[in-house]
């Protein structure tokens, strides 16, 4: 693949994400009214419309962009690191750790205290589970140890989340927890976006810094080492970066499945399967896909909105099955 093609793919995906981003701000219940109010002559109407735009629609669109890019990027990086197309950001346990942290905030009834307590709990949960992951797997973990430790942490934190659900004192807390776990962008504020963004950016930078190392790993760990890449450093940056970024994302939006798994698959053939070249288009594609999914949940004009995490899994899982079938048919 030529450089020009690579540039075109990235530009195309960025354009797609930009279109969905703008649509995400303007489309939705009362969308027309909002646009009309924006052009209204009445000062109060106009400032009210701006307020909705800035405090309701903008955070939602920004979250779609940031969380989608995070999931696409970290999914691509983990698949490259583990050299396994089935890897996804949830594999290392940070997202279920973040979910548990947030659920505990609901469980103890702290969520009503401040809108920031849930994301704080989520990020704390992600960081603690990352710490445990490293304690379990040692300084230079093998890929298998890393996966096993991640699965163990995911299983344990999920069990604790279920425990919190079953012991929750009020049905209202159970309702809150379940709805939060399903993953959604609704009713998120700019404060939450501002809180999560630094973690996501730092995590993404750490992950992106492994790009050439991931390429070297294509030929195995020994070859990567002989090409001058330190294994411990690549693994640490990819895993900690993923944990930070995905932990922060989950702590604000709840669990959103399949984007980190499906997007790298879709983009990979376009970039000649090279792990480093997959990172940027996968991030852009993830943003576009999640923004599109969030537009989709807003389509039903009456009744409750379906939760975003439910929709991504509902579309993602059958799509993934189709991918598997296609790969099987193409295999000799």
């Amino acid at each position: 693949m030529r450089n020009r093609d690579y540039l075109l793919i990235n530009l195309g995906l960025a354009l797609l994400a930009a279109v969905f981003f703008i649509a995400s701000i303007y489309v939705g219940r009362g969308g027309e009214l909002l646009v009309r109010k924006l052009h209204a002559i009445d000062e109060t109407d106009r400032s009210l419309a701006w307020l909705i735009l800035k405090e309701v629609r903008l955070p939602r669109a920004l979250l779609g962009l940031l969380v989608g890019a995070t999931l696409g990027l970290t999914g691509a990086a983990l698949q490259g690191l583990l050299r396994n197309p089935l890897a996804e950001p949830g594999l290392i346990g940070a997202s279920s750790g973040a979910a548990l942290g947030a659920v505990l905030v609901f469980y103890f009834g702290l969520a009503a205290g401040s809108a920031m307590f849930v994301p704080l709990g989520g990020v704390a949960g992600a960081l603690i589970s990352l710490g445990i992951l490293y304690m379990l797997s040692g300084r230079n973990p093998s890929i298998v140890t890393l996966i096993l430790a991640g699965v163990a942490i995911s299983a344990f934190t999920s069990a604790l989340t279920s425990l919190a659900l079953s012991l929750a004192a009020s049905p209202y807390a159970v309702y809150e927890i379940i709805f939060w776990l399903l993953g959604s962008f609704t009713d998120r504020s700019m404060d939450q976006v501002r809180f999560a963004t630094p973690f996501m950016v730092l995590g993404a930078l750490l992950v992106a810094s492994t790009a050439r190392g991931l390429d070297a790993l294509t030929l195995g760990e020994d070859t990567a080492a002989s090409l001058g890449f330190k294994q411990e450093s690549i693994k640490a940056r990819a895993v900690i970066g993923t944990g930070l970024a995905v932990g922060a994302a989950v702590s604000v939006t709840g669990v959103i499945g399949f984007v980190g798994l499906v997007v790298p698959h879709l983009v990979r053939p376009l970039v000649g399967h090279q792990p480093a070249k997959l990172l940027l288009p996968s991030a852009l594609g993830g943003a576009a896909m999640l923004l599109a999914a969030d537009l989709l949940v807003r389509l039903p004009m009456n009744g409750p909105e379906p939760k975003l995490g439910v929709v991504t899994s509902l579309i993602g899982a059958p799509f993934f099955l189709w991918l598997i079938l296609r790969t099987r048919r193409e295999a000799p």
Partner: protein
Amino acid sequence: MELRVENLRASLGGARVLRGPSFDARGPSFIGLVGPNGAGKTTLIRAVANLIPFEGDISLDGMDIGAIEPRARARKIAYLAQGAESHWPLSVERVVALGRLPHLEPFRAPAPSDEVAIERAMELADVTRFRDRDVLTLSGGERARALLARALAVEAELLLVDEPVASLDPYHQLGVMEVLRAYVDQGRMVIAVLHDLSLAARYCDRLILLDEGRIRADGAPAEVLTAETLRSVYRVEALISGEGRSFHVLPVKRVE
């Protein structure tokens, strides 16, 4: 280029594999590392590639290899693992380009010199014809050459290869040996772990015979591969005949 290995000791899973081999080598030279299974050949070249912990000294032009900065070391020493595989279906050209990773400046695209090196390596290994093909769909012989081209593209002064001709047919075995020979003739050093003694003797300038972690013989092929060493080290009776490019060893029966 001068490689110096002194009193090298290394263990695998608690068992001592290398018991203090020492040797010096000056480039250009094609060195065959031979010996029975379990003699420590792979461990030795992995130690020289700095991939495993070891005791003793290994130095390159007087510099301790552990003290060289990893990227600089990666530019000096290339390593081709036995049965190396690509985990993703990259094109041959992309795989060969991975050999240039130690030469790339951070945040910079590959330089024209990298493109030249990639072309040169593909040319030398004769894989230019299928540069755009998916490396995983190639035949065993073609794939071995593509992965060899990746190691050549590093353009390191020292190339370490572990059993490069295992599982190849005679045509491709000769092909790979000729590529390695040509690489040496450009003024570089190759150390190859080899099991085919006839091939080793015909193409290498020097053979090092390893047994139970020690060097049993070291020198020109005809001096190393004698009836006596084959009997005591390999435990086979062998017919040895010819010289130079027609030298060959034919093991005929086991020594009880």
